[in-house]
Each structure stands twice: as structure tokens, then as C-alpha cells.
């Protein structure tokens, strides 16, 4: 299928379950109504599923260009497909969706406009609204609003993972391989958090104004459709905490953050100073507080060691209370 216009944006849709077909109609219809629909190519990343013949007519119905990636490898291949999707993308811009997401009609257009006007930027991150829903009689019934994933503060970003995978638009260009390497193929949970953690701390990114909605994602009352918090999730969480510790040690203790080209990252530290809980603190104290917080949540030897080393000062013993609130 070839579009009249040259595609500008690849939207990778990972599919690991045959159930997805029913959801896809709604997703593809919404993409067809997108402000830049004629510039979109949908890249379906199929995990052990031979459903091209079912998907192609749907794309044809909505006049959407499509491509396919396959894997027959065993196990959860979603992260591996995520990496391959970036590597094999042929357009300048790239974004992710799950098969049951609903992207906003203007989010891609607005993100790309910002990326085009700021050549140094590599990615934008925007607001995602999460809803609870049931799937009955072949349609989605939204029962409530669960969450709004958004933060203008990188401090919150680091600790609460406020940007699901659908929140970003990437400008790949020459950095395609570098960005693909931010994906950890072995992670099957929190892979988005890991990816963004690497992306935001290594590349210039812009957090969009809150008014710009990137899309909706859904948590189902039927729990089979949701991702459970299991051992793999806990392991991923530990890995992320260790990464956070390394970042803090590297960028804060040595004050290397002042040299970073990423204005957003620097803004994080400026904002951090303004938070009431951090009043009268020095850079080192912020590290200590952070590590105390991390140590309270994890059994990681690395974090515990770092925490013990930096939090030895008795005068900061009341600091833990600040984080307990979070």
C-alpha cells in the first residue's frame, strides 16, 4: 500500500495476542482521522502471529500505509520488536502504540511541529490519559478515568514513570541506532520506563505543554487484558532503581549535570531546588535524600551501599519523612 505523500511518521504497533484484531479497528479508524493520516505508516510488530491477511484489508479500508515486522522467537519479544521497529524505521519520525490505544487527532502533528522547529531536539513527551474500560458486545465502554500521565518535572518523571510508551515522538535521523540501543530487549515489563530513562538522560527532549494530549490508553476490568505486577515487573523495577542511582551518582555528586546539553534535564535540577521538601538542601543532601528514598524501597546492594555511604550524617535523619509522603 503506497500513500500519495511521502510518509513522515512511523507508528509501531506491537501485537502479541490474537485478541487484538477486534481492538485494531478502533485504533486504525482513529489514525485515519488523524490530522496527518496521509503521512503515517503503521508498522505492525507481530510476535508469533501470522495475521497479515487480516490486518491488510483493515488498513486498506482506512487508506493507511502499513508495513510488518515478524518474530518467531519464543518468549516475550515485545522489547526486541520495539528495538527492531526503531532500527528498521524508514521515516524521520517514530512513535509507539499498543493495539488497543487511541491516539489523539492532533498529538503527532503538534509534536512533529515542535521537533521540526527545534533541530537539536530528539524527542517530545506528552500527556496520556488512562481510562478504565470493559470490552462488551464488540465495543469498548469506558467506565472511568484512571490517571493522567504527565509531569513537567523530571524529578517526578524519574520516580513515577509518568510517560507511557505512547507519549513520545522520536526524531530518528542519524541517531537511529543510538536510540535503538536504549531499548533493553530482555525487559518484558517497564520497558518503556527503561527506554525513556535512557533517552531523556542522554538526548535533548522536550516535555510538551499539558494541553497537548498524545492519546488514551485503557485498563480493563477484565484482568486478563491487563499486565499483572509479577516477578518480572519487580525485577525490572529493581533494575530501574539501580539505573537511577547510577545517574544520580554520576550527574549530581560530580555536578556533571551542568555540562549536559539537555536543557530539560538541567531544568529538572532547577525545579528540584524549588520544591519545599528540598529547601535548605545542598546538592549532596539531595543525593542523600534520593538514595534514602531508593533504599527504603529496594534491597539492591548497590543502592544500599550508596545510601549508607552518603546518608551517614545523623543530622539528616529526619529526611526520610519527606519521601514517605510520595
Amino acid at each position, binding site marked *: 500500500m503506497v500513500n500519495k505523500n511521502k510518509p513522515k511518521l512511523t507508528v509501531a504497533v506491537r501485537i502479541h495476542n490474537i485478541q487484538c484484531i477486534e481492538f485494531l479497528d478502533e485504533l486504525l479508524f482513529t489514525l485515519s482521522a488523524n490530522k496527518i493520516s496521509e503521512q503515517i505508516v503503521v508498522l505492525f510488530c507481530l510476535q508469533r502471529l501470522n495475521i497479515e491477511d487480516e490486518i491488510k484489508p483493515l488498513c486498506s479500508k482506512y487508506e493507511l500505509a502499513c508495513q510488518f515486522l515478524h518474530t518467531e522467537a519464543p518468549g516475550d519479544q515485545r522489547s526486541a520488536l520495539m528495538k527492531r521497529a526503531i532500527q528498521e524505521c524508514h521515516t524521520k519520525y517514530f512513535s509507539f502504540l499498543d493495539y488497543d490505544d*487511541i491516539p489523539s*487527532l*492532533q498529538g503527532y502533528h503538534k509534536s512533529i511541529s515542535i521537533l521540526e522547529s527545534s533541530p537539536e531536539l530528539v524527542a517530545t513527551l506528552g500527556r496520556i490519559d488512562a481510562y478504565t474500560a470493559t470490552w462488551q458486545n464488540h*465495543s469498548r465502554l469506558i467506565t472511568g*478515568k484512571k490517571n493522567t500521565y504527565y509531569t513537567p518535572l523530571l524529578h517526578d518523571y524519574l520516580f513515577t514513570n509518568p510517560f507511557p510508551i505512547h507519549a513520545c515522538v522520536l526524531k530518528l535521523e542519524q541517531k537511529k541506532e543510538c536510540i535503538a540501543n536504549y531499548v533493553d530487549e530482555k525487559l518484558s515489563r517497564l520497558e518503556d520506563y527503561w527506554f525513556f530513562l535512557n533517552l531523556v538522560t542522554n538526548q535533548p527532549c522536550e516535555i510538551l505543554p499539558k*494541553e497537548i494530549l498524545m492519546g488514551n490508553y485503557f485498563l480493563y476490568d477484565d484482568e486478563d487484558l491487563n499486565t499483572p505486577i509479577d516477578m518480572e515487573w519487580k525485577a525490572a523495577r529493581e533494575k530501574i532503581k539501580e539505573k537511577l542511582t547510577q545517574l544520580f551518582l554520576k550527574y549530581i555528586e560530580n555536578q556533571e549535570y551542568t555540562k549536559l546539553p539537555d536543557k530539560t534535564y538541567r531544568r529538572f535540577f532547577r525545579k528540584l531546588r524549588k520544591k519545599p521538601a528540598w529547601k535548605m538542601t545542598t546538592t549532596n543532601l539531595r543525593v542523600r535524600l534520593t538514595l534514602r528514598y531508593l533504599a527504603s524501597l529496594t534491597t539492591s546492594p548497590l543502592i544500599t551501599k550508596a545510601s549508607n555511604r552518603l546518608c551517614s550524617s545523623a543530622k539528616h535523619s529526619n529526611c526520610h519523612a519527606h519521601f514517605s509522603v510520595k
Partner: protein
Amino acid sequence: MYDTKIKILIGIVAYKNTRKELEGSLNAILKQELPNKTTIEIHVLPNCSTDYTWLNTSYSEVQIHKSQGNIGFGSAHNRLMGSSSQWTHYIALNPDGTLHPNAVNQMLCCDDGCSLIEARQIPLEHPKYYNPSTYEVEWCSGACLMLRRDIYKETGGFDDDFFMYCEDIDLSWRWRSTGGKCRIAPRALFAHDVESNDARSNLKERMHTSALILAHKWNNTTAYLKYAKKLKEMADASKFDDLIKTLANIPKNKASTVPKFENGFYFGDGRW
């Protein structure tokens, strides 16, 4: 369900819409997967001086009505509804939205003969509550709304006193006050871009003006005072005084237990 022919008139009230916007809307109508014995007519009424003559050459299926300037949303739809006696079902459709290919069919499937039917707006659904079994709602949105001819005859369509906003709520409440129903068709998808609405500076003032008229018509003193107070803060004094004078000439509806002025502009219970 239908033995006789269904003749649908889709009415579009255009207001400074771009060609791309209108083409998207019209192309989606032309792709509708309709049940047997069903036909669609498309009528466009410009509520502005924008030149839409290109429609004549690009869309032979579309009938363009002569603009009378911006006569308001409800009045314009009333004009379109009154322009033909042939239709069995009328669909009021916003020009900045796109119908799913199966949307009209799905709206017809939900037609039980006594309901106003609204399509499901995506990506931003209205948060108002609906019954998950019967799909009944307190009121139907006019962004994509279907009504049968007998409902039109019974209600007289929209109330011309509303310029924009809340005319759909008023129509829904009037219909429900006679024993009729309002329903959402959950599989009738309507992709509608409401994200740019927030940017319109006069949106709040217009919404509050319409809400004040609604409160006046349905004789709800608490809501009337609330909206009057807010409007007084945002509109200039002479404009506000003129509105209050105009309200005196707008007749009130019969007392009804249907209207709900709770939850601000939800006008009823919300899902969030």
C-alpha cells in the same frame, strides 16, 4: 427491523471549516456501510460567508443551502430539517468530525423508535454517565445526533433561542419529559477533534450564556444564579444586561423531573 425505506438526511452546518476538514467529513459519509433499503442525502448549510462552491464540483451528492449568515447551530439545523419532508431520520453532524464506516448503521441498530441517538465521540469521550446495559444517557450531544421524523415533529427540533451549546441538552430534556429516551450508540464511532476547543477565547462565555438560558427555561433558580454570577464576571456589563432582558421573552418549559443541573457542564452524573 425496518420494512420500509429509510431515508437519512445528514445535515452539516459549516462554519469557517477548511476544505480538508469538510472533505474528511464528507468522504467518511460517502463510505458508510448502510443496511438495505437505506439512502443518505447530504445537506450543507454554511453559517458563514466562506465560499463553499467547490462542493458543487467535487461532491455531486451534496446539496448546498444558501447561507443566511451565522444564525446559530440549532437554528441552522432546524432549517435543514425543515427543508425536506422526505427524510425518515435526520443526523446532525459536526463538520470537523469523521464518521466510522459503520457508524450510521450502528446508530440505526440502536433506534428503538422512541430515542434520540448519539454517536460515541473519540478520542475524547464526554464523561457523562450512561447505563452500561441500556445505553441510556441523560442527554445526547448534538455533535453527531440522530432523530426520527416523529421526534422532530413532536419537539419542533432545537430551540432557536440557543445560539450555540446546550441546545442539544434542551432538546434531549424536552424529549425525555414526554416519555422519550436518549441513548448512546457505543459502536457508532465519531472521531471528533475537540482538543482545539480550549483555545477559543469566547468558548466559556458562550457556554455560560447557553447554560443560563437552559436554567431559565427549566426554571432552576440555583443554576440560574450560578451561571448569571459567572457570566457577569466574564461578559461586559451591557451585553449581560441585554441577555437578561432577552431572557424575559423566552418562554419557560413545563415543570419536569428530567433536568439535572448537577456537576457543572456534565448536566447529570459523570463517569469521572
